[in-house]
């Protein structure tokens, strides 16, 4: 049981990092970033290339930064120009990025599965008293929770965080108050891409790299954001851990249904609370 909770936490934390990026971008740009899974996957592959040549730690620091820079470019030369137009234009752009990234990965690294070894300090298992658990997974849990705590603190206490929250609530008014909303949005898209990058690097030694890994996790991440509530940051965080735990426990208690659990959870939430756990909007 203890191990199941840890399993749920490990996967949940990964979803948490991914979904907070997705939720942030949605909140500010009003776009469902279909490229989120592809960015996550790209990060994992680049991390593999860096780890093979130098070290995992270097990848952990550089890859999220690189992808944040990419996010800045996507926002500056893509999303910003589309912000007044139909949401479909933005969906097409992010959907297009997905295809391009997936093909670049398949051309560069092929279709076969790859793995990254955890750094030597995190290899093996740790005895936690109740059970022994892979050290690397404990690291993933710790990192994920830390990053989310930092994100919440930034949103709550920093000046930019205040702008982000304000622009998420009402873009026009925030702009009228003198906030450069485009700049805030750029920061948020960069942050979102950076978080997807971090999730990708963390996932490398934990899961397996394959050209399907992006789409596989994207669907679950969407579910997390819907369950958590569109337009909220805290909601998806709770939902991510909930989905992770429910999935881990269902795999043991009701294996036949485990694949349906995230969907059932979404169905339940949508029926009882259509706006999600902490959402303020019911639709796009």
């Amino acid at each position: 049981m203890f191990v199941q909770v840890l399993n749920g936490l490990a996967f949940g934390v990964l979803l948490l990092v991914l979904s907070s990026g997705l939720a942030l971008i949605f909140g500010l740009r009003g776009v469902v970033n279909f490229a989120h899974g592809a960015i996550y996957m790209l990060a994992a592959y680049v991390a593999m290339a860096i780890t093979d040549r130098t070290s995992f730690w270097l990848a952990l620091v550089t890859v999220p930064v690189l992808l944040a820079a990419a996010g800045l470019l996507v926002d500056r030369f893509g999303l910003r120009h589309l912000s007044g137009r139909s949401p479909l234009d933005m969906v097409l752009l992010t959907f297009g990025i997905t295809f391009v990234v997936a093909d670049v990965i398949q051309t560069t690294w092929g279709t076969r599965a790859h793995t990254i070894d955890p750094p030597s300090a995190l290899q093996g298992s740790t005895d936690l008293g109740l059970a022994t658990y892979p050290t690397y997974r404990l690291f993933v849990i710790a990192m994920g929770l830390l990053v989310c705590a930092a994100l919440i603190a930034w949103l709550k206490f920093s000046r930019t965080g205040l702008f982000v929250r304000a622009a998420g609530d009402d873009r026009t008014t925030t702009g009228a108050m003198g906030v450069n909303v485009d700049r805030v949005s750029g920061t948020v898209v960069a942050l979102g891409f950076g978080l997807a990058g971090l999730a990708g690097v963390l996932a490398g030694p934990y899961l397996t790299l394959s050209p399907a890994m992006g789409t596989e996790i994207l669907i679950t991440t969407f579910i997390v954001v819907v369950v958590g509530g569109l337009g909220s940051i805290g909601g998806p965080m709770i939902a991510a851990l909930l989905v992770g735990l429910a999935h881990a426990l269902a795999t043991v208690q009701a294996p036949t249904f485990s694949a349906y659990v995230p969907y059932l959870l979404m169905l339940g939430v949508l029926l009882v609370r259509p706006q999600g756990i902490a959402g303020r909007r019911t639709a796009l």
Partner: protein
Amino acid sequence: MKKSLRLGVALSALTLATAACSGGAASTSKQDADGPIRIAVVTPQSGPYAEYGEEQREGIQFAADEANANGGIDGHEIELEFADSLGTAEGALTASQRLVQEKNARFIIGLVSSPEMAAVTPKLEAWDALMIGTQGQSDDLTGKSCTPRYFRVTANDTAGVNTIAHWLTEEKLPQWDSIAADYSFGQASTAGIEKTLKGEDSKLNVKLFSPLGTTDFGSHLSQLSGKGGLVVSLAGSDVVNFLKQALQFGVLQKYETVLVNTGLSAATLKALGDERLVGALGTNSWIPTADNPATKAFVESYAAEKGHPPAENVGNGYLGMQAIFAAIEEAGSIAPADVAEALEGLTFDSIQGEVTMRAEDHQIEAPTYVGTVQKTAGGGLELVATAAIPAATNNPSPNPACKLD
């Protein structure tokens, strides 16, 4: 609300547009009797089985290039037409139909999973096409849902189980655990293992299933006992995922023996590259290390050309092409109906030596192989064949439910 409605409509339109692009109009032109042999290579190019798809394409391409370099087959040049099955039944059906009807490629090959094949086989006669199965193992394809135009050159599930039975009986462990893919392959494997163990005074202790494409096996791993032996019936990236995480959890190391049903392919071992897998037992329909002169000759000529030995499914794809070529030569025609008739009961030379396509159910009669993981001279890992299980032992007798007329 209005915005979301618009988005929904637009997304549906996008989906429809994509579907329309891959649909296409039917063509009625007949295969030209003197023209090239057009082969529809339908493989998954993404998803958990993408790697297998790539291997299939390599083997099929190698066979086509080799045949063309030698002046074609029976005077005909080989032309390959490629399409992506997307790894799904619907995708396989759409892609196959497109190549048959638009490109007039009536010999279909390369599909990886049984559900993909099962979607296409019922249509073959209506399309006047023929299909060679080079990987999917479901018994039904050559059993109760057999069709006159479908032929399989690789082992079926029962043959696969009869092959693992070699290790289950040899190892004599009091108990085994099993983890299997939650679809026909894994289910048939688990049922077969359970039956075999009953006759061996042993038992199947823990029995787990995981959906195709499982990313996190943590919850499965915590349920494994670590006692006796472990049979893994997973495939594609699932088996890499599982073995990697099982090593991280330290679960794999607890077992006396780990046995993998077809999953210990060259690609899996390369992705993992973990020395703790040395000694693991594996089985497969064909393995490049098989002690067989025809296999050796094929592996040598492939390695000379490509610089590395062929993976398992490169060989399977190649074997499928050998079956088509042999039947065309036998028939003296490239009309799918004539080729199908010639292939029925045909004995031909292959990378496994002399093999026979059984007339009753179109299931090949060929050996299967068992082996152990060993370290290669180059520091990598490979599954080295230790024995061949002859067709007489591995192949179940034809299912009477299969009626081909």
